[in-house]
Every structure is written in C-alpha cells, then in structure tokens.
C-alpha cells in the first residue's frame, strides 16, 4: 500500500464512521473522531463507560494523522521556521526552570503560543533562529511574516505577531482588536504517523475487519426507475476467502468467489466485479428478486468444494519440502534422545521422555505444512444481470 492508497483508505474509514474532518493537507488530515470511531481507536473504555452511565455529552478526541512524515515535516518547518519554538526562552539551558517543557511534537506543531512568539521577536530568538534550518533557508513564510509584522503590530502585543506568522490573517485581525487570541485547540492535538506497518493503521485494519463482515445489498439502477416493467434481479452469494499456505514460512492468497443462487454458476474475482456498481441496502423501487434454487448454506458447500479443486491443482513442492524438513528434524532429535535415554538413570527417564515429546511437538508445530481457508466476509448481492464490468449502460 502506498501513501496515497493509505490516505484514501483512512479517509473512507473516517467518513464511514461519521468523523468530522477539520483540516486536510497534502500529507496529513486533522479529524475530530465520531463517537463510533473514538470507541474503536482510542482505547478509552473507562471514559465511554462513564459517558454511558452518566449520560453526559461525549467529548471525542481530535487527531492529526500524518501519512507522509517527511512531507509533513517539511511543511511544518516551512510554517514554524520563523519561531524557534523548540528552544524555550531560558529554562532549559540553565537547568533552572522547574516547569515541564513542551514535548518536541507539540512544539513543532503548534507555534501559536505566546511563548513561541516571544522567542520569535525577542533577542534570544535571534541567535537561536540562526541555528534553525527553517529560518536559515529564508523561504519560510513564517519567518518573514514574523519579522515584518512583529514591529508593525507592536501595540497588539507579541501574541498577535506570533499568530500572524503562521499565516492566519483573520486571527491577526482579531488579535488587533482583542489583543490576545486564544490558541486554537489544534495545538494540543496528538499526532499519529499512519505509514504502512504503523500501529495505528494496523488498528484500523483490525477494526474494519471486525465491522465489515456480513452484508446484503441491492443494485441501484437509475435506468430501472423509468422503465415501466419491474426489473428482475438475480441473487449472488459472494464470499471472500483467505487461503493461507503455511509451514515454517507462509504465504496467503485471496479468492473472491461469487455463486449464482439460481443457476449454481461460480465466478472468480467476484468482489472486483462489484466495485463499479451502485449498491444500496434497501430494495429499490420497481425491482423484484428472481426465485433461487440454492440456499446460501448449500452454496457454501459447493464453494468450498470448488476452492478445494482449485487448490488441489497447485504445485505443492513447498509442502513436500516442508514435510521432508519435518522428518529430518525429527530424526535428529530421535538420535539425540534415544542415546540419552539409553545412558540415563532409571529415575531420570520420565523427565527426559517428557522433554523428548515436547521437542517432537515443537518440531511438528514449526514445520508441518498445512493449508487453511477462512472467510474474510460474505454477503448476498441482488444484481441486475451477471457480475462483471460489461454493464456499461447502467452507469
């Protein structure tokens, strides 16, 4: 999965859960989670228990999901470069400050605090800023903004200059009137990197696997509404199988099979053939479902048999090799333990035998080749005509 695909995937998930997108950038998205998504992603079961029991209005969390950390970093230093928010005025270098410093993430992301602004215009900022790559580059809009607006808006105070530096003119106008603009909640938003393999993405994968399992849908045809006669839909049983071939190593396959409940016909790549169609959970108007001959249960048996036939045709050298390895390994420990048992004291034998059996089990567990077919998800699909990409006039 590349960055774009991940971004699309996550946005679809956020949309499906009704989360509210606050800000969408090239490499990131800031989102206020819906209660549904919050429960699924934030591990706050105590909080949700509390909400349920007391009936208070839930306050869901806001996250910034970063899809491309490098691009995001570049964008951030571009904005925040003018204010070396990372370096506090004096506390850290002298060790004097008792106050906890901001974490690096927060400091980089939210250069809107009054403290950041102080360093931006103040004398200490000058030397520190020179060390910062963003400011040295000179291309950062923030740095020029702060430098130009700082002195000009002097009566408004340093905070206004700080916010102006981030490129939010509306706030700077407010700042001119009110002197101080409360920092937006965005500055405290936890950030999460969503690259392939990241924990958060794995979590979302797990969530959708649990939530998109069984389904029943009807094709929604605009054309059907204007036709006087009711349209007959055929019923398909679609099953997405995951086949795992494993020994001490493993590989997987997906088999998406569709079964026509009227004729018993089986098609492959069923899932992909659905993607172009408009599907709805409600029976559309002017549509009826044609009678079927097979029950889904019967269809399942036939699909399993079909899959078995497909798998039987595979080259199973890998399994033979794994079985040979298994026998080799068993032979190796046989030699060792039989020797040991021969020489061992009578009283020690039961222990050694136990150990021997354990080793045998471990080796079997490690090497025995096996194929497992499980179902990712499945559903009944009522479609006009046959599945496949060839139904252009309906789209």
């Amino acid at each position, binding site marked *: *999965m590349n960055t774009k695909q991940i971004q699309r*995937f996550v946005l*679809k*998930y956020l*949309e*499906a859960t009704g989360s509210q997108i606050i800000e969408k950038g090239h490499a990131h998205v800031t989102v206020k989670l819906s209660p549904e998504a919050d429960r699924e992603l934030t591990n706050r079961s105590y909080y949700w228990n509390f909400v349920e029991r007391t009936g208070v209005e839930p306050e869901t969390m806001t996250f910034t999901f970063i899809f491309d*950390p490098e691009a995001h970093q570049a964008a951030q230093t571009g904005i925040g470069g003018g204010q070396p928010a*990372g370096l506090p005025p004096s506390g850290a*270098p*002298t*060790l004097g400050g008792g106050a*906890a410093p901001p974490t*690096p993430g927060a*400091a980089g992301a939210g250069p809107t605090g009054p403290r950041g602004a102080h360093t931006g215009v103040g004398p200490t900022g000058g030397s*520190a800023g020179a060390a910062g790559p963003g400011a040295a580059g000179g291309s950062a809009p923030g740095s020029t903004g702060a430098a130009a607006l700082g002195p000009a808006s002097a009566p408004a105070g340093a905070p206004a200059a700080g916010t102006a530096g981030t490129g939010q003119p509306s706030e700077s106008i407010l700042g001119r009137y009110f002197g101080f603009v409360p920092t937006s909640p965005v500055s405290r938003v936890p950030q999460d990197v969503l690259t*392939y*393999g990241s*924990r958060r993405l794995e979590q979302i*994968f797990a969530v*959708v696997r649990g*939530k998109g*399992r*069984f*389904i*029943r*849908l009807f094709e929604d045809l605009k054309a059907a509404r204007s036709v006087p006669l009711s349209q007959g839909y055929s019923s398909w049983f679609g099953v997405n199988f995951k086949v*795992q071939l494993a020994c*001490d*190593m493993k*590989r*997987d*396959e*997906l088999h*998406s099979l569709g079964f026509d409940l009227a004729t018993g016909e089986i098609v492959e790549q069923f899932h992909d053939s659905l993607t172009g169609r408009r*599907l709805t*959970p409600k029976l559309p108007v002017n549509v009826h479902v044609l009678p079927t001959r097979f029950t889904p249960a019967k269809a399942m*048996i036939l699909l*399993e*048999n079909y899959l*078995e036939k497909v*798998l*039987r045709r595979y080259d*199973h050298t890998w*399994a033979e090799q794994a079985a040979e390895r298994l026998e080799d390994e068993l032979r*190796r420990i046989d*030699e*060792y*333990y039989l*020797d*040991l048992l021969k020489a061992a004291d009578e009283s020690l034998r039961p222990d050694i035998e136990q*150990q021997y059996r354990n*080793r045998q089990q471990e080796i079997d567990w*490690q090497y025995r*080749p*096996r*194929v*497992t077919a*499980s*179902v*990712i998800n499945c559903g009944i699909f009522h479609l006009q005509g046959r599945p496949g990409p060839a139904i252009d006039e309906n789209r």
Partner: protein
Amino acid sequence: MRKPDQTDPVRPLHDRLQLHFDRSWQEEWEARLDKNGPWDDWTLYQLAYEAERASLVSSFDELQCLAHLGQLKPMGHQIDTARKVLHEMRGRAILADEVGLGKTIEAGLILKEYMVRGLVRKALILVPASLVLQWVRELNQKFGIPAAAQKKEYMWRQCDVIVASIDTAKRDPHRDIVMGMEYDMLIVDEAHKLKNKKTTNYKFINELRKKYCLLLTATPIQNDLGELYNLITLLKPGQLGGQGSFQSNFVVDKRIPKNEDQLQQELSKVMIRNRRGDGGISFTKRHVNNFLLTLSPEEQKLYDGVTNFVKGRYEESQGQLSSILSLVTLQREVCSSRDAVFVSLVNLFKKTAEDSPLRPRIWELVEMIRGIEANTKGEKVIELIGDIKEKVIIFTEYRASQEYLLNFLKSHGLTAVPYRGGMNRGKKDWMMDLFRNRAQVLVATEAGGEGINLQFCNHIVNFDLPWNPMRVEQRIGRVHRLGQEKDVHIYNLSTKGTIEEHILSLLHEKINMFELVIGELDVILERMGKKATLESDLLKVLLESGNDDEIRLKLDDIGRSFRGAMEEADEQAAPLKKVMDRMADKTQKKAGSRS
C-alpha cells in the same frame, strides 16, 4: 482411504498436506441471515477486503518486514542475517555478532517478519533486568511491535509480546504461568549465561515450549567447547550429536577443537557471526588527545587541603573503605570544578555533628573555595570548542560541574544543552533534538542511558574521568558506533599532580583503553572477573600510598596485571576464537558470493 465428506472441514489436498476450512464464522452468518440483518456497512465491507489485500503475504521468501519499518533502515549485514535465519535456519538460531553490530536489530527484524506473516503472535523475550525497558522501547519505536515489560501477573496472558528478565520468569508464581504457555517465539538476550546445563536458568529455557527461538550472545564460547555444545543443544538438540559423540568427534581438550572444518560446517547451520571489519561493517578511527593542565595556585591549594583532609580521615577510619568512598569523591570533585566540591563539602558540613572537631576544618575548605575565581578546565573547554568548531559532547561526572559548565558556556555566547539521567524520556528526547538541530554543545552527566544515539557528533570532551573503565567505554560508545561516518576525537582533560593524572595514565597508557575496540573491554573485564573490583583496587592504592612515586608504582602493577590477564585470556581462548573467526569468515564469503 475413506472418501472425504463434502462438508468435512478437514480434507487432504496432497499425500502430506491437508486443507482446513475455518467455519467459526458460520453461526453468526446464519443468525443474521435468519433475521435478515442487521447487515454491515458496504464501505466497511470493502475496506475489510482492502485491508486483507494490503496485508497479504504473497510470497514464501520475500522479506515483508522492510516495508513495515518506517524510519529504521537496517544495515546490509543485518538484513542478510535476518534472511538467513528465516530461510536457512528456519527460525532457530544463535545470533553471535560481535558487540555493537546490532543483534537487537537482527532479532527485531526476524520477529517482525514472522509477525507480519501471522506465524508469530505470542512472543517471550528474556533479557537481563537492566535491559528490559530498552528492549521494549526499541521494539516499539523501531519495529512498531507492541511489546510490553512484564509487571503484573496477568500480563503473561494478556500481552502477546512480553519482555521480562529470566530471573522473574523462572520464579513462582510466574513460572507455572509461563510454562503453561506455548510461545511462537522465544528470544534470549545475553544467552552466554545459559552455558551451564546444570543451572536453573538453563533448565527453565529448556522446558519452555517454543516454536522459533533466537539466542543472542557476543561470546558464544568463553572458556570451554562444552559451553557451545550446551547452547546449541538448547536450541536444536542433536545438532552436534549426543554428548558422547560430540566429545569424540570435535573435542581434544576443552579449549582445543578437532575436525574444525566439520565443526564449522555444523555451527554455520545454527549460528551467525558478523564481525567488525567484515565487508560493509566498518568503524571509523579513534583519535585520543590528552591535555594535562596545571591548576591555578588557588585551586592547587584547595586540592592539597582536601587531600590532606581525606588522608587524615582515612587513617582515622583504619582502612574501612566504605566510609571513605565519599571522601575520595571530594578529591575527584576538586579536579572537576569548585562548584562540585562546594556542594559536597557543604553537605558534609551539615551532616557532621555540631561539636565535632571536623567542622571547622571542613569550613576552612569551604572558605578556600571562595578564593577561587577561574576554573582552569573551563577555560580549556572554551578554547577547545573554539578550535573544533563542530558539535561537541562534554561529559562530566557531577551535576554541579554540569551546571557550572552550562552557565560558563552561556557567558561565552555558546548554546549548550544539558542531558542527565534524571530527566524523563520526553525531556531526554527533546534535549537530543535541540542538540542535533540547534546547539553546538551538549553537556551530559550520563552516558549509560539507553537509546541515545549521537552519531551525528564526533567530538567528545571528558571533562573528568570516571574510575570505572566501563563507564568511559559507554561514553565513547554513544558516539563511536555503527553509523558514525567520521573519525572520533576524544579529548581528555586532567590536572597535573592530582589523582586524575594517575587515573588517566592508568586508563590511557597502561590499559590502553581508548584504543580498545568497541566491546572488547566488556569481554576482558568479564573474563577477569574484575568488573566490581577494579574501582576499589584503585581506591586502595590512592589512599595507602605515601607519595606520588609509590602510587605510580602500584598503578603500574595494576596495569601490568590487567594486561597480563588480558593476554592470558586471549591465549587461552585462541583456539576457540579461531573457530569462531573462521565461521565468521565463512559467513562473509557466502554473503560476498551472493551479492
């Protein structure tokens, strides 16, 4: 053969292969079908399929884990090692790289690969107690593996990847729980501690039920071929034959192997050893500069005063070392900075009984500090930093010296960042960040801190020297490690006519420790059993000697015995080392021919 039932969930595919249909989902599906719902969302249905497709492992051999590691870029030999363990050793191996080559990274790669493939869910990682948190952090941060440090009993069951010390795991009540589990993967760090078959640790590991297993050690053989045999038997019983046949096939004497070629061949099936200097694994040079500084008259006066005070107290205490330790610290602190000794003196003053005759003597010393205006070492540091012009790390043993330095540097217009053991993780990371991006100087009191990698810097100033050679090594090791591209410069500051001068001459000239290869010291000290005693040996010498010449002579003795032990250990281990080295050469040649 019975004709398989059409609805049987287990069916033979091939004479040695069965197909299992997982039917656990059917009940719920039928229930929903009966009630015609509730049905799931179409988008989520599609996303679920997409998620499966994205995490699909389509090939048996291609390394999947690399795509899953965002920031981490493993080195060539680490990836080669992971491949070899996965494909040739089938997940049971001894990782015996020399110190500092990233055995943890290799183990992490292998674990991650199996997890991505769904072959490992439950993993147990047994490491020395002091390394538990470091492992947890590395697995989480570098590999995105949700590892947890074992703290509560329930965690054994609840956490899939758990890191614990072997001593905890083998104790009741943990033992029974751990024994009741089946671990998809077991990793043991510092596995050379399992060389003795009769120990409870060995028996414990032997009894554990595990599928894949990695043993990590830099020193698979220390004294005896039997150790190696035991280690391999733990991993794969019978790999080197039974105890008897191993003895007759491979052993002449416990340190002298025979049939070396065959032994190496057998070893290379279960063990991987990468060495420094092998293709692609190179360390840069170390340059050592010593600066012997002359104390200002005021400072010298204070030093002498403190020395006399300490000696007097030592004679009074009749050679009891423990009570005197803090007093020697005073001497060392004078050499560092007046700030350091000031704090300790004032504390000592407060602790001393009010009617004690010592009190006025201590106060005298405190008064002497007032007379000191400049710090000789401090001036030298400013000069050095000016010459170096690049990033510099200054190490000191004392908090007070650190604060003094920070202020002193600031008054000279230099931005310096502090680093201390007491800082919490977030603050430490932040300080690292500041040093990397915005400051020229880092002033650190702690070097042992895990996970700080400072390869972007190649100048170290030892403002004062620890007496424990391991701590010196740790300081250097923070900078001089894999990934350091430039030569490393070490600047040692010491003061003439003080104990510091002696310490430096012992470490530098007699033990030659600044030139030792990374990790070597650890091995030598362990061999000598010297880890704990070297420091107290030094202490004794310094306190009991009447004058400088006597000290020098006695330090010569220590140095000589150290070197002697080192050579002896080397000599004894030479035949064993040869086996190991030739194995590494072999690994190397193989890797070379492949690429």
